[in-house]
């Protein structure tokens, strides 16, 4: 293991990864060190992400280089680094949980290749005229292997797995860092002019394969990294809006707004690294959407650069009725239509009071019934999530070592009360985690209302601590995946939205399908197949699945993984769920969903759209400059 090692390259890499992970576990506290250029004259300047991401981030895993989980010499799980509140803590029960859940063994390691070997990377396929013009405009760029590798992938399992094995597919041939909207306009114009291919890159947290470079792309691929476009351009206190550059990272946006006494309240699980532009492009959803809304509710204005010009509304108004909303064409387009450069968002004054909570239910059915009732009464707190039993056990395994005997005694008492006195079965019970926000008084009132409803469904209040730990799980899960991958365990999450009447059936059938498909495909140990109802709506819910298994003995684990995930998604669709609630359309399944693109392409092929209006592309995630010419030809024909 890395902590016990010395010298070898592999160990170093592991160390670095460790450091990276640790940074993650302090959800609301930003990284302090910043290597990016200092703020210029801007009023508010973010500073998390340097151009050279490799300086703080892992190249083949999640998050910061200094933050990671590992099993120490004693076999105890521990989290490194100081970025998160979890840094330096010991998790005594994680090892047992890990070994018994996956049939894994600390003796059986599957470490990644040591370091990024730049020499193994194919040299860039450069578009010289493009490069020359770019240079003459003074827009920063890089041809370096490391920069290119960093922007060639999102965080899908197959992408990370390949990186850990030191395999690289088609990479972008160069990276450019526009500093503002006008830079993007110039870059897109150049790409059109010189027939280059652009892929917008924000936080790199995509899980829909949208960043993957098409292997058969012959043109030079340019990764357009928006990370330097990270200013809050203005804050409008009268209308409660903020105009922000799209490259800003979630945690920075919140931090900077907080300094002025505001927040957006948009907190997707990836908010440490994902960007505003990415949220818009994927129709993101935040944990606290019950109060603040999803991205489509938050956005007031979008500026997007397309190969056919800039798309934006001429006003910043709460609603309009002049044809279909152009925003809804942009949101969810996943970079296929253009580059989002600036966004006006609603903001809110910072809430006065925040309180976590949790409720234990005797079983998942009762829990879902309670959430349904809460949704019906429209009294959902900022966040309400219901974890199934397996996920409850998972969360439990992440309980840090308690320092006092008194606390552990109390824990014992609680457990005794719930299982023995209340007769809950530890293998069936499940937990809802809650987060309340707002005026202190209203929060307390609200809290009582929700607990009263829960009681009707057999729910018992189970304390703030359990609630908070539940939310922590979603922030550390990506770091935990890296830990699993060190020991032959691979996994991923996927999500769906589903009408209320199908929630239970969908959860049961999808989990069962995963288990059976794994067995059929030769997975030796039953997989972890768990879900939580993670958002509630009037007409349905969002369900989030974790799925992981021990791949020892499998020749092509990623392929098996993908087959099982495909089957699981098929099951979701058959049970009345959607392909995605907020992750975006998974690439391998895009044949099953009629994306906006397909509809648009279809409509445009009939000449219904004005050609100057929008432009369409072939590959998801790729702004395709060549298509412009085709459009041109089409237009000429029509004329």
């Amino acid at each position, binding site marked *: 293991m890395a902590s016990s090692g010395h010298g070898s390259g592999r160990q170093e890499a592991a160390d670095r990864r460790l450091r990276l992970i640790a940074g993650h576990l302090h959800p609301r506290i930003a990284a302090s060190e910043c290597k990016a250029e200092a703020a210029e004259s801007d009023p508010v300047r973010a500073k998390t992400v340097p151009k050279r991401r490799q300086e703080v981030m892992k190249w083949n895993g999640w998050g910061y280089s200094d933050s990671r989980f590992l099993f120490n010499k004693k076999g105890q799980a521990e989290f490194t680094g100081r970025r998160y509140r979890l840094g330096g803590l010991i998790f005594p029960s994680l090892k047992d949980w890990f070994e018994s859940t996956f049939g894994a063994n600390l003796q059986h390691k599957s470490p990644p290749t040591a370091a990024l070997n730049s020499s193994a990377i194919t040299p860039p396929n450069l578009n010289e005229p493009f490069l020359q013009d770019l240079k003459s405009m003074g827009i920063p760029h890089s041809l370096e292997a490391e920069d290119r590798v960093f922007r060639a992938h999102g965080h899908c399992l197959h992408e990370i797995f390949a990186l850990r094995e030191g395999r690289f597919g088609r990479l972008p041939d160069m990276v450019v860092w526009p500093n503002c909207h006008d830079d993007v306009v110039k870059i897109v114009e150049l790409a059109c002019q010189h027939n280059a291919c652009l892929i917008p890159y924000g936080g790199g947290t995509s899980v829909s394969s949208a960043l993957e470079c098409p292997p058969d792309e012959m043109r030079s691929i340019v990764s357009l990294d928006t990370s330097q476009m990270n200013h809050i351009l203005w804050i409008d206190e009268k209308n409660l809006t903020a105009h922000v550059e799209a490259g800003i990272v979630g945690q920075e946006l919140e931090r900077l707004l907080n300094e002025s006494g505001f927040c957006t309240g948009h907190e997707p699980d990836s908010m440490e690294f994902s960007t505003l532009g990415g949220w818009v492009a994927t129709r993101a959803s935040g944990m606290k959407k019950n109060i603040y809304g999803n991205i489509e509710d938050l956005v007031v204005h979008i500026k997007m650069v397309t190969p056919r010009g800039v798309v934006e509304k001429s006003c910043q108004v709460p609603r309009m009725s002049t044809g279909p909303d152009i925003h809804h064409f942009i949101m969810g387009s996943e970079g296929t239509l253009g580059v989002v450069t600036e966004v006006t968002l609603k903001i809110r004054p910072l809430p006065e009071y925040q309180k976590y909570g949790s409720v234990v239910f005797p079983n998942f059915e009762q829990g879902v019934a309670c959430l349904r009732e809460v949704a019906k009464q429209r009294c959902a707190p900022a966040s309400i999530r219901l974890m199934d039993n397996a996920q409850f056990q998972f969360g439990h395994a992440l309980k840090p070592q308690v320092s006092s005997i008194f606390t552990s005694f109390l824990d014992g008492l609680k457990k005794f009360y719930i299982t023995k006195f209340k007769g809950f079965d530890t293998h069936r019970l499940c937990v809802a985690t809650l987060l309340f926000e707002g005026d202190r008084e209203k929060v307390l009132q609200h809290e009582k209302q929700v607990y009263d409803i829960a009681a009707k469904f057999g729910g018992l209040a189970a304390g703030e601590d359990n609630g908070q730990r539940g939310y922590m799980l979603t922030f550390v899960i990506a770091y935990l995946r890296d830990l699993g991958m060190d020991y032959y365990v691979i996994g991923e999450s996927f999500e769906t939205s589903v009408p209320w009447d199908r929630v239970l059936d*969908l959860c049961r*059938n999808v989990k069962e399908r995963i288990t059976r498909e794994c067995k059929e495909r030769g997975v030796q140990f039953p997989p972890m197949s768990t879900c939580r109802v993670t958002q509630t709506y009037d007409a349905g819910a969002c369900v989030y699945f974790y799925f992981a298994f021990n791949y020892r003995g499998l020749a092509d684990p990623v392929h098996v993984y993908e087959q099982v995930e495909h089957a699981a998604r098929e099951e979701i669709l*058959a*049970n009345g769920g959607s392909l995605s609630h907020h992750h975006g359309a998974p690439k391998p399944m895009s044949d099953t969903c009629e994306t906006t693109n397909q509809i648009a392409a279809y409509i445009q092929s009939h000449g219904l759209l004005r050609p100057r209006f929008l432009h369409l592309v072939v590959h998801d995630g790729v702004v395709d400059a060549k298509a412009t010419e085709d459009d041109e030809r089409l237009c000429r024909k029509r004329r």
Partner: protein
Amino acid sequence: MLSRREDFRDILEERRTSSDLSHALKSFTRVSSRASPPCSVSTLNKTVLESQHLHYIMQEVSKDTGEPLEAIREEAAGILEEMSQNLQLGYIRFLGFILSKVFKRLFRKINVNEEGLQRLQQAMQESPVVLMPNHRSYVDFLVLSYLLFTYDLSIPVIAAGIPLMGMQLIGEILRRSGAFFIRRSIGTDKLYWAVLSEYVKTILRKDFAPVEFYVEGLRSRTLKSLPPKLGMMHMVLEPFFKGEVYDISLVPISISYDRVVEESLLAYEILGVPKPKETTMGLLKARKVMDEDYGNMHVCFGHPLSVRDLAKGKVNRKQYNLIPRDLPMKPSESIHAFANTTAHLVLRLQQDNMVLSPWSLMATILMQNLGGINLKLLTKQTVWLKWLVLDFGALVDWPVQVADSEVMSSGLSLHHSVVRCEGDQVLLAEQKPQRGAAPEEAVFRRAVAVLMCASYRNQALHVLASPAMLSVALSLAAASSRADIYNLYAFLREMFYNEFIFIPDRTGQDFEEACSLLQKCGTVQIINQNIMVTDKGLSVTSFLTAAVEPFIDAYQVIFRYICSRSVQEFTEKQFISGIRTFTLNLILTGEVKSYDVLSSETQKNALASLVRLNALTKKKREEQTYFSPNKAAIGRTADILAGKIAPQARTYSRL
């Protein structure tokens, strides 16, 4: 002897050596590993009555009829009360004790394939199970519960006809042994359908108990499989389509009898004498059947079919996404086709696992020698037939290490009610008509004897049906080209679709199979897309043709009858009484030899075939079904069947 391996074990053996009482009182633990705790009968019924689906239908009915919702709810509760089972282990034990006594008295052996029971146990742990036995005798009714009790498996709830409920005391005992009662003709009674389907679906969703039902709908009077009824089939499939359960296992179960307890009633019933009403007194009176020997009984549990696997690629479950879960939804074309194919598949699998007795092979030979046959010849031919059906993949219960002659005489003596020996001659045992009785009376008595024998032939007919269709096609075809023969085969298959139960959309596959069976036993040669009967194969094809000839003759008579009538339309009732007189005359003049045409089952099947072939049009008017014939089409059909003209060419498809 069994050439296809299926190991049977006689469960009566243990009953004969140990106490029935301790068997009835043995500890019984229901095997089920799935998570949901079992619910009580009253919770089950409450769930049904409070279901959204039923609520919705009740509102609709209330709107239609103008009656208050409360009254409709009462009515629904009444229906449910009449219907619902009240499964109690105590009654199963009680029944177990009685049945041990009865079965030992009736049967020499009850043979069960234990491997099948193990598979069933496995299936029960994985998903809700539907038990689908064939139905040949009243004895079927509780034998499965008895077996499952003996083997510590969950006791099923059983769909039963409402007449059984009417039996005093017995009805209640059956109810407490898991029977739930369904009215015979539900027709368009919306509320009744809703209560029934919600009841069945709730049992499956809650995995309350395995559901047992007869996909044939009725007890088969001919001992042949009946065309499936799809109502229950749809009900048990829907929870899977709607995702309410992960999967459902359908378990085909084949129950075969050496001798059927109610054999003498069968012939009368198919000749149109109504069956006696089920009453407790009737049952007590029927006690004397207990003194007879009924030989062996075989119960073969087939491989469980996963509905999920069957539906893969055939049913798009997303079609259920656009309508609220609890609202009734008319099954789409694809769902309907799937239910139909699945029901036929189950029937086919039931047939595959039927165990043929030497007697049913003898009956098949006897049916081709109604005038009597020399015992030696009968033995020779029966043994020959045994090898043929073994080649065709049938299971045969031919005792090993016993001389063939002994097997024969044992079969003959067991069936003294059907055959008798006069010296070396084996003859049908028919009751002599009273002196001075009308000649029709003699025909009727003869028909009873022939049809009784025919039902035992029918037990083996499914093995021969497809190759026999091919043999007939070969004899009718003008040329030996594969395409011509396929055309004829497909035509015959359509013609006898209900008679012999073919799986829809499998014509090509079945044709290939029949060809390869006959090829394998050297009956036909296939050279350059030509199918030719070999010299030594002639005996096989002519035997097979003769085996189905009574049906062909019967259909021809029926066609003739319809064409000879001048009326524009007729009801089924008119048809059945008319055809009976018509046939009787033909038999009296010696023009017709087939007695199968007197069977009301054959008559109904022929009507259904003509409707399928669009030679009859079916119309419903004022609760009455009318048929109007297209005589030209019927004439053409008759001509094809007689080999006078070729059927319309159809595209050959393997699947």
